[in-house]
């Protein structure tokens, strides 16, 4: 298979707390991997290691053939290829929606303002927010803000998208609109790693589900396998609590 993300023996601790230990996984091009598990299981830390927002202590990460932790690797170049969507959106509040989206393509990818705007408007159309181009983030609802954040990440034309609990800070009635955008993206063949508590999404969209606990991967299975016939007692217990 054609692995775009390869993780070997990834480990990390904060002081005496081990948050990741010996994580091994390969993720293929166009695959959607959903990471689930109780809070504090290390799933967000794992995700944030994939673009080095967290520094691993040990192990190897390869993104599209490039070793992330090699000191000759320019981390900015890899981050430009790996989009990330955050729980709290993290839009830039001092810029309009379209400027949020255009900034990085212009400054990092050196696109012309015209090119960046055209692509930005196209992406706003895709997330259904063309009319909000000139609005400021403070005037958006949570669901709208998160869709803008997705458009902003896509504007860099990334090869991989990371989602860190993208719906956890949203009101229930707004979760659907964000998940719909993510489903579209999966259908178009984007490689996605999604940390979420939305089990419906995991089952419907995920190609593989990773169950993590206490910094370890306990189980990697297909959605059917994991939800209907979990191997581990701990997985069963977790699922019985949240389903």
């Amino acid at each position, binding site marked *: 298979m054609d692995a775009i993300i390869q993780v070997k023996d990834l480990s990390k601790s904060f002081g005496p707390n081990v948050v990741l230990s010996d994580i091994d996984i390969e993720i293929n091009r166009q695959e959607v991997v959903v990471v689930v598990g109780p809070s504090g299981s290390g799933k967000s830390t794992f995700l944030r290691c994939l673009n080095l927002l967290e520094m691993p202590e040990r192990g190897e990460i390869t993104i599209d053939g490039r070793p992330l932790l090699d000191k000759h690797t320019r981390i*900015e170049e890899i981050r*430009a*290829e*790996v*989009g*990330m969507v955050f729980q709290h959106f*993290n839009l830039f509040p*001092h810029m309009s929606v379209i400027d949020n989206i255009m900034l990085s393509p212009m400054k990092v990818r050196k696109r012309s303002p015209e090119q960046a705007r055209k692509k930005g408007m196209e992406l706003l159309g895709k997330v259904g927010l063309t009319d909000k181009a000139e609005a400021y983030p403070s005037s958006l609802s949570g669901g709208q803000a998160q869709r803008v*954040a997705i458009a902003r990440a896509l504007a860099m034309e990334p090869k991989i998208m990371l989602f860190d609990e993208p719906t956890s800070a949203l009101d229930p009635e707004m979760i659907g609109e964000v998940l719909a955008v993510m489903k579209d993206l999966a259908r178009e063949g984007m490689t996605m790693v999604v940390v979420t508590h939305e089990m419906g999404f995991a089952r419907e969209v995920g190609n593989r589900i990773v169950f993590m606990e206490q910094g370890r991967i306990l189980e990697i299975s297909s959605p059917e396998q994991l939800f209907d016939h979990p191997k581990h007692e701990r997985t069963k217990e977790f699922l019985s609590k949240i389903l």
Partner: protein
Amino acid sequence: MADFRFDIIWDYFPLFMRGTLYTIGISVSGIILGSILGLLIGFGNMSSRWYLRLPMRGYIHFFRGTPLLLQILIVHYGVVYNVLGTTDAIVAAIVALALNAAAYTAEIYRAGIQSIDRGQSEAAKSLGMTHFQMMRYIIVPQAVKRMIPAFGNEFIVLIKDSSLVAVIAAPELMYWSRAASSQYGKIWEPYLTAAVIYLFLTYSLNKLLIYLERKM
């Protein structure tokens, strides 16, 4: 107070005015030079490199932890003559106030930048921006707005503290007030005049800052 002599104020009026202009000039130069120097010191202090961070931290501790009067005397008699080769008290006054303001503004920069939510820098990094691009387009524009009140405060303090340079005979407002006081043996006439002028300066600056803050 019954024998309040307006003629003293009148006699000294040109000197009060000239002194006021010097006070303004010294304070404005001090805050501008201090802010520029403070920017370097502030960013040095936030650096992850110890050889940049430690000296800057030492600088900040020294200038915030010793009396300004002492700094003025050292700069005038010890530093300015030896380094710049001049005995001009105005130069020494500006240098001393700038060095002192740099320590305080360095802390304003630090506080302003650290007040920006970590999510902002994470978003910028995740979009492939370099550290410089992140600072330039995301962090500093947001931080500057939050720094304005603290900067205004520092400027007001600096205007008042500039009166201390009277001890090295820099001919600013306080210097001429003391001169008038000793010439006539009077307290209220010169010092009350100086107080009114200082109050006018700090009050108008305060108003200007409130206006600026609202506009942004």
